[in-house]
Every structure is written in C-alpha cells, then in structure tokens.
C-alpha cells in the first residue's frame, strides 16, 4: 500500500480540540475521493476517539497531549488516536454497546467508530495509555453495490 500523504499531529487535551481535530482530519481526507457522506462519518469517528482520549484517557489534565496521525493510501485513510493516559483494563467490555464507566455518558463512542469505519482496533494498557487505529476505505467510483454496509 503506497502512502500518498501523511500527517502527524499532537494537541493539548482540551475539549475545544475535538472540533478542531474533526475539521482538520476531514480537510486532510478530502485529498482522496471520499463522498461527502463518508467525510461526515469520518468526522464522527474522529470526534469520538479524540473525546475518549481527552475525557477518559487524561481526565482533566489539559497539559497532556493527544497524538493523532492520518495516512492516505489509494485504498483509504488510516487514523490513529493515541493518549498516554489511564488505559483500559478490559477492551472487549469497553467496546460493548452502552458500556460506559461514566453513568452520565451513553457508551456509544466505540459503536459509532465501528459503524462508520471499515476497521477499528484498540490497543491499551492500564496506566500507560490507549491507541485507537481506524481505517476507512475510499470507494471513489465504485458502484454502490460493492460498498460494504456500515
């Protein structure tokens, strides 16, 4: 898979950066022939992953840095969102629909990532941090029938 373009960034763990990351990744992803709908889906997935890093990974420590990388290939975009925060003890459980360690939250972040991206992988160690790696395929001119259902 030949890399067409690569972006790495890091930003402070602040709620305002959720909206920033969403717009920045969509602008970068527009270099591929994603549909507008694909871009909207990508934005939701990025928002959820970045919000998790800020809210759950770091709690409230705004000086901590969230790392995000995006790689474009002819096949699509791979996005990594990483924090060096609290980590997740049981990843499988965390990814279950409606599971949240915070009673105020809906526990649908990972569900959205999985429904809007073609691949989602979560690597985490308690006390060390979490890395979410997601891939979204670009269907460009492919006929609708060959597009996977999300």
């Amino acid at each position, binding site marked *: 898979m030949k890399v067409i373009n690569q972006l790495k960034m890091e930003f402070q763990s602040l709620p305002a950066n959720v*909206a920033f990351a969403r*717009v920045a990744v969509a*602008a*970068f992803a*527009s270099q591929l022939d994603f549909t*507008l709908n694909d871009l909207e889906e990508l934005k939701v997935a990025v928002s959820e992953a970045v919000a998790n890093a800020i809210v759950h990974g770091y709690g409230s420590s705004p000086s901590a840095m969230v790392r995000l990388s995006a790689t474009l290939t002819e096949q699509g975009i791979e996005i990594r969102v990483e924090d060096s925060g609290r980590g997740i003890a049981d990843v499988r459980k965390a990814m279950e629909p409606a599971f949240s360690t915070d009673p105020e939250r809906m526990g649908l972040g990972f569900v959205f990532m999985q429904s809007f991206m073609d691949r989602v992988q979560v690597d985490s160690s308690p006390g060390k941090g979490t890395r979410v790696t997601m891939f979204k395929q670009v269907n460009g001119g492919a006929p609708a029938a060959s597009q996977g259902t999300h």
Partner: protein
Amino acid sequence: VGEIRRFLRDDNPVKVSRSVKETAYRIHQARQKLTGRIGREPTVGEVAAELGISREDVVTAMEAAQAPTSIYETLHQ
C-alpha cells in the same frame, strides 16, 4: 483564469456540499448584519453564535466559498 478555475475545482481542501454553500452565504449575510449592528468587523465567535453553528464550521464554510487565498500562489506554484 483557467488556472484559477482549476484551483477552485481541484485544490479546495473542503468538499463543498449544497449545505456548506448555504452556510457560506449565511455567513456573508451575518457578517454584514453584525457589522451594521456593532459598528465593526464581527469576530468568528460572534458569527458562529449568530448562526448557531460551531466556530470550526464557520471556518470550513469560509474556505469552501472563497476565491483562492493567494491567486499569485496559484498562478506560480
């Protein structure tokens, strides 16, 4: 002129949907209205509040609507 057209078509980092174009138009209107009301150029926060959208969406719509930021850059890149 052909180059500028090409720029508008190919080099725009923001894909333009109809709703983004509408937002761009509403930003243009809000900008004029707010300038009249407060007697100075409005800030991005004031425009976002007026339209009930995020600051980042204001930026996206501005980028989508605009002519090349640097025509010179386009022609000579």
